[in-house]
């Protein structure tokens, strides 16, 4: 066993060294306290609703949200808009439906059962409108980026003037958190850009936090249920483990061997 510790120590040292040398090259993401982190983490309802507002007024003109339906806005563990509010939100969009009895496609107001309306007809149209760059779908975006929520939160606030020596093409912007620092999305957030209906001051930081919270929910709509169920499951398992441990001791005490 001594060898075991000796070797684990060497391995730990080796890995520690490697990770440190890697970390030195990386940019530290901006930190904020996320209400949904940790085993008891829950979404901040108000923040989700504000985040939806930011998504709707700012992001949704380019970024689709194709796996989300309007009904999701009502569901437990999400922004929990009232049914009336969600119906009104859905109805404010025109959805292409059909074909009708005459074989024609037609436009109608959105319903709760509809998926979020996409800003562009297809990927090519999105690219054409955005200088060749495709604005990624946002539904699972935070899970599709290595840094997760911290990365998105930082990126939204990471626009800077390029350092001397870096030249940018037209339609390319400098962002210190972007991989390779060059991004085709311009800075979207500025203080007071949206007017929050709950009166919260719409600073860049606040909007970045709200919209990132919203994106965390769109990526993991069952996060709250998962956390709650996980706590119950683990407590249950621990109690059962303790009971089984004592039964085991008792059974093995019939013969004189330690377990």
């Amino acid at each position, binding site marked *: 066993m001594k060898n075991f510790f000796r070797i684990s120590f060497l*391995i730990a040292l080796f890995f520690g060294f490697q990770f440190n040398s890697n970390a030195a090259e990386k940019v530290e993401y901006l930190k904020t306290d996320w209400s949904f982190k940790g085993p008891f983490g829950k979404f901040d309802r108000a923040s989700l609703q504000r985040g939806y507002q930011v998504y709707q007024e700012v992001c949704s003109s380019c970024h689709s949200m194709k796996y989300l339906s309007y009904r999701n806005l009502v569901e437990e563990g999400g922004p929990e808009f009232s049914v009336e509010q969600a119906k009104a939100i859905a109805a404010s969009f025109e959805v292409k439906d059909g074909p009708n009895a005459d074989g024609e496609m037609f436009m109608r107001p959105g319903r709760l059962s509809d998926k979020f309306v996409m800003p562009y007809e297809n990927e090519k149209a999105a690219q054409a409108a955005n200088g060749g760059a495709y604005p*990624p779908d946002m*539904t*699972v975006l935070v899970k599709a980026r290595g840094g997760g929520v911290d990365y998105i939160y930082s990126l939204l606030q990471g626009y800077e003037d390029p350092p001397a020596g870096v030249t940018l093409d037209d339609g390319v912007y400098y962002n210190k958190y972007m991989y390779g620092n060059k991004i085709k999305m311009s800075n979207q957030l500025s203080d007071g850009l949206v007017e929050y209906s709950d009166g919260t001051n719409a600073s860049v930081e606040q909007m970045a936090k709200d919209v990132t919270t919203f994106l965390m929910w769109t990526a993991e709509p069952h996060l709250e249920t*998962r956390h709650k169920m996980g706590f119950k499951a683990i407590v249950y398992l*621990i109690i059962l*483990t303790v009971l*089984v441990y004592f039964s085991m001791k008792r059974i093995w005490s019939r013969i004189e061997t330690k377990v």
Partner: protein
Amino acid sequence: MSEHEYTPKSKVGKWFNDRLPLLTLANHLTDYPTPKNLNYWWTFGGILTFCLITQIVTGLVLAMHYIAHADMAFQSVEHIMRDVNYGWLIRYIHANGASMFFLAVYIHIFRSLFYGSYKSPREVIWIIGIIIYLLMMAAAFLGYVLPWGQMSFWGATVITNLFSAIPLVGEGIVTWLWGGYSVDNPTLTRFFTLHYLIPFLILGLVVLHIWALHVPGNNNPIGIDIKKPSKDTVPFHPYIVIKDGFALLMFMIVFAFFVFYTPNILGHADNYIEANPLVTPAHIVPEWYLLPFYAILRSVPDKLLGVIAMLSAILILAALPWLDTSKIRSAVFRPLYKQFYWILVADVLILGYVGAMPAEGLYLLIARIATAYYFLHFLVILPVLGFKERTTPVPLSITEPILGGSPNLAAVKKKDSFKDQ
């Protein structure tokens, strides 16, 4: 094995048992004499059975909702995550279950290596185990392709392209595997079929693995042959059942932690981006459990030789019972082997680490050294060690090590301290 003939008590039982001896089998399984000094490293066999069943059951449910089509696979996974009742739970159990399965199998394999469980008369158990391990890797790889994310697509492209290294027929084989000229819908549908098939092959082999185990019986931490049944053994039920159950519960707590609190930490973020044949990810990496072999593959500059090295790294294990020339099973009585064993463990961990890093500069150098050492361990160190090593005296039985004729108290003490860990 069965020391006394079993007869069911009831008439109906006897009638049935004469026609199909299921009750005899059940009796054999409960009475099965097991060495009483088995430590917790021996509980992973039961844990692995649990993992297999979990994967099959969750997999069945997922297959009811999944759509194996290049245009719909990614979307159907999101449908499972969002709209299927507890779909997120089932999918996270299945995805993390693969990792837990490999974690357990690696512990199981390294336990075998430490205590010499692969040696005579258990070679067949060992070789069946290696085949199961190979099938597990195939199943895991195929399964990782199904969500049709970026890593799925590009991982499939990289791995299937390995076959193109075969001279003359390589390119043809790759086209045949793909069912076209690139990884596409036909590839996905056949991968789904095979992913569904393999677990049942594994299940069959597990039955053979356990059957083969029940012929000579379990090895044990001091690696000696024991009389069965005797003072050295306990019946499988309830002694081993409760102990395996306890260990399984501990394992499930770790499992639950991953599923409920960090369900995506073992996966790659790029797999939440839908597959796009036109965009190659910056780094294509396999899942963590395949990384050591990936490192071996990349450490050889030639493609064909790299593939051969990677395959040999696994197949060499099948020859292990004959490469290890030592008559002593347990490393407890092999002071030199014990050192080399831990060096091998470190070597494999290092290979896993460099497998996740870009294959360049220092990483490549480390990968090459570690690869060379891996083969050196099996091809040179083990055969030579069996002849050169001075082993410490082995006790004659578990209960009476000293009376049995071994005067070496140190060895006995060592054995005890091992048992207590």
